[in-house]
């Protein structure tokens, strides 16, 4: 398939970390305004180290939505939340060897889901937001918030 890179197809066909975490420390669900697709991300965080010890996702979406979810979970697993917050959709896309132009927005969904899960974790634990989590100002034109 010329549409997607081999990496995308690999993560689509064998998605890592699919599923739910019933005892998650943070859950984030985001919807994509462009296409209506939905992603839910669960994270488990070590309260001492602030490291993301486990992560799972559920996605209702296209091939690249599934692949970017999968890749994003791999990229944040074992990382401190502060580092996970640095994850950009661009980094996910690069890790997947690219996406077709009209599919770039799908990767935003993954970035958003990670941030939403962390935000939920912060909320539950009354941790104040840092710079990276300040409210969306709605000017990036991708997430639809």
């Amino acid at each position, binding site marked *: 398939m010329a549409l997607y890179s081999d990496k995308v197809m690999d993560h689509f*066909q064998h*998605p890592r970390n699919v599923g739910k975490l019933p005892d998650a420390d943070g859950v984030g*669900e985001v919807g994509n305004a462009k296409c*209506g697709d939905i992603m839910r991300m669960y994270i488990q965080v070590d309260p001492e180290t602030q490291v993301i010890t486990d992560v799972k996702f*559920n996605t*209702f979406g*296209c*091939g690249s939505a599934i692949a970017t979810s999968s890749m994003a979970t791999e990229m944040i697993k074992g990382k401190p939340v502060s580092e996970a917050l640095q994850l950009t959709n661009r980094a996910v896309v690069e890790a997947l060897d690219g996406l077709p132009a009209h599919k770039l927005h799908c990767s935003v969904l993954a970035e958003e889901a990670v941030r939403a899960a962390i935000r939920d974790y912060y909320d539950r634990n009354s941790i104040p937001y840092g710079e990276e989590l300040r409210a969306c100002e709605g000017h990036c034109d991708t997430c639809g918030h």
Partner: protein
Amino acid sequence: MKIYADNAATTRVSDTALAAMTPCFQEIYGNPSSLHTPGQRAAEKLAAARAIFARNLHADPREITFTSGGSEADNQALRTAAALGEKRGKRHIVSTKFEHHAVLHTLQALEREGFEVTLLDIPPDGVVTAEQVRDAIRPDTCLVSVMFANNEIGTIQPIAEIGAVCRQAGVLFHTDAVQAAGHLPIDVEAMQVDLLSLSAHKFHGPKGVGVLYARRSIPLATLIHGGAQERGKRGGTEDIPGICGAAAAFDEACATIEQNAAYLTPLRDRLIAGLTAIPHTALNGDSARRLPGNVNVCFEGIEGESLLLLLDEKGIAASSGSACTSGSLDPSHVLLALGRPHEVAHGSLRLSLSHENRPEEIDYILEVLPGIVSYLRGMSPVWDE
């Protein structure tokens, strides 16, 4: 197993069509507008192809214009009726919400130019009624355009009834018969159709060849200006190989309509029965008044592209909605028009069969699909059994 179940998107060129094309590439390769023998031999081919289309549509050869495909034929048909309407101060057009984009986008362009367009709602069975058309016609209506068979859900519209309503109201009637031509009998006289479009690659002819039928009394508006080809109404050197292949394919398809329908209908119905047995799965469009090869279902909780990719992995080529919108992210306008909610419309699957599909392929599709559906539902945050 490799299964091609996307014949509504395009079809394999038949042996008959290819045989008709082959001599035109390197032997009878003249320009049909040329006076010399090589040119006149090409002109004879062109005339013969025109006669084949005319005969099978119950039309006159002078009523047949060759175009570069169904889209161009649709565009030219609509532009023609609009130009005639303009002259008589009639700027209202009736069409439907589930037309192909070749029609809908042309209508949008006409709206920008001052036309008013009424798009009929689609009843839940996917069949527009002649009454809906009659009720929508106004004194300033210049055109009714209703497709013969829908390209996504395959439902067949009551063309003869709509034709009668239009004729009685003195309004031109165009039908986009791209999905119907070669699969359903067409008689432009009996059906009182004034303008009709078709496209060869939907009935095992080559891509890039369309036909616009226009009743003799209707002066075509020119879309592509140029030489004196096609009675001066469509410039450009004619694609003789393509046109010959198209005619051969059409002749063959029209001769085997009944036979193919008899073969395909049970296969289609077996697919429909098997798929709708999967929980939370609904057939789109009437189960009987549909093209013999068309199956279209919605699986709740599933997104179409993932489904297609997983099917493709299993060797099954299918589609979700129409091919030409696959570059876009919107759910099918056809399914939305049919009343499916946004997220359900997203989970549609179209399997479109041709006589080249084998019964074993149906078995295989029914074998692998349920597993894929539950796999995707299992991954879906919107799905709770």
